[in-house]
């Protein structure tokens, strides 16, 4: 595939490894956080952890939107799905996420009308075709996905589609990064920032990391060569004592992002005062809700939701995995009680969760030095 295969070249990977070998200081470990779950997936799928010098330690961040949805919100989704008039639509990733009362997949098995969609526009089309039913879209994701929900809401209003609504759980990337940077005892040297979130919000959104926390940031694409390239750029900044936001993904990301997408989000959604993140707790101004002007298409306004809070299972250490405090195999239930077939924590559910990546690519225990 174009713009993919070129960035998987083995020859370039070897060049980049040699470059890294020349840049690292033997014995000085550099902890680089890849924020996005897509990056975690690429690192393990392509074995990058073994390719880079031992001094490079990839720490996995909170950028898997499926992994950070608290169990109470999943229960709210199930309550919506169980209403007889509702067709509940969701991205496939969310189907198996366990709430306090099982998953959406289990609700479907019990008879709820839960359907997987590829795009919120597919959910809108279902609403057009089923005028006697209520179609609810489970809107999750970072700033990459929020514009799709926004355009769908705008279109629902323009076409006066009254039986469509969004259950909005969109989250924003900067607040959890700030929470991680503020958490005591966590040492990080630099950030591999998410390429597709940046396609929307631009590269300026990370300035505070370089300016206030003195950590270098490189906005990065998703192929193995991209991640190695970003690693070189970060290590070079650290070697030269520089600390700025750089863009590795110049083929797609513009400094200003996509102003049209930002405007669509701003027109349809507003910041919540606070939102609960699985493992990270309550973070101020970290999530979006549908604006009152679009209340007609807001599932939280249209339907009464239980709105309960559910504690994570005691054995689950997703919270520590999500901020990079422990490696997945250090969790007490990893690979034993918690597996992709029967997940306890969300990091094991989504293919982009750090635990699922470790499990699926055979990193089930400490790698011998």
């Amino acid at each position, binding site marked *: *595939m174009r713009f993919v295969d070129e960035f998987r070249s083995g020859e370039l990977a070897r060049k980049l490894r040699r470059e890294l070998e020349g840049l690292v200081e033997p014995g000085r470990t550099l902890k680089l956080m890849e924020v996005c*779950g897509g990056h975690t997936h690429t690192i393990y799928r392509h074995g990058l952890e073994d390719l880079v010098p031992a001094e490079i330690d990839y720490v996995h961040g909170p950028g898997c939107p499926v992994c950070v949805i608290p169990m109470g919100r999943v229960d709210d989704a199930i309550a919506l799905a169980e209403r007889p008039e509702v067709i509940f639509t969701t991205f496939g990733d969310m189907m198996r996420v366990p709430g306090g009362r099982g998953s959406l997949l289990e609700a479907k098995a019990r008879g709820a009308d839960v359907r997987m969609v590829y795009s919120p526009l597919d959910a809108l089309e279902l609403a057009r075709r089923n005028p006697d039913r209520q179609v609810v879209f489970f809107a999750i994701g970072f700033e990459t*996905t929020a514009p*799709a929900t926004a355009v769908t809401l705008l279109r629902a209003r323009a076409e006066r589609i009254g039986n469509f609504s969004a259950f909005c759980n969109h989250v924003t990337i900067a607040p959890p990064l700030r929470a991680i940077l503020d958490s005591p005892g966590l040492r990080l040297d630099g950030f591999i920032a998410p*390429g597709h979130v940046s396609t929307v919000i631009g590269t300026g959104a990370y300035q505070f990391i370089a300016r206030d926390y003195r950590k270098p940031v490189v906005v990065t694409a998703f192929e193995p060569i991209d991640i190695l390239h970003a690693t070189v750029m970060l290590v070079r900044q650290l070697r030269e004592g520089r600390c700025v936001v750089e863009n590795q993904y110049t*083929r*797609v990301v513009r400094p200003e992002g996509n102003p049209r997408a930002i405007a669509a989000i701003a027109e349809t959604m507003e910041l919540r005062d606070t939102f609960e993140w699985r493992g990270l707790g309550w973070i101020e101004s970290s999530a979006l809700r549908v604006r009152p002007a679009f209340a007609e298409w807001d599932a939280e306004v249209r339907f009464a939701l239980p709105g309960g809070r559910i504690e994570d299972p005691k054995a689950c250490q997703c919270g520590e995995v999500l901020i990079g405090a422990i490696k997945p195999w250090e969790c007490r239930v990893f690979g034993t009680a918690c597996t992709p077939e029967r997940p306890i924590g969300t990091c094991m559910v989504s293919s982009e969760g750090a635990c699922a990546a470790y499990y699926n690519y055979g990193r089930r225990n400490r790698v011998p030095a």
Partner: protein
Amino acid sequence: MCLGIPAQLVELVDAEAGLAKAEISGVRRAVSIALCPEAEVGDWVLVHVGFALSRIDEEQALETLALLERMGEAYEQEVRDIRESCITCGDEAVTARVVRVDGATATVDVDGEREQVGVELVEPVEPGDVLLCHAGIALEKVGAK
């Protein structure tokens, strides 16, 4: 979740509604270009949950690849220098087979690479002789044809 797939726009279906057809790995699919209305047929775009989020800048992609190609060059030059230094300036002596003799200079073959060495100290030599060379000078004849 934030997966984006490169796709080429092949048809504009409804400009007003921002609907287009894109080819993704040989499969044609309807995508919305509401967020990327400047995209034209033939352009490559990044598609996420059915929406074109951004145009892919081919020039920038090629520039990145060219930059990465160059990244290894310093290292490769160093490897070449080290290899060549066996004859021109290193401490070690290497054996080389004579390919051609041109007066006091012979062309020799060192691991498949052609080099020139002075043969004043070991004359006469002829093609096929094996010479021990150091710093561009043959020091000893270690095998005759």
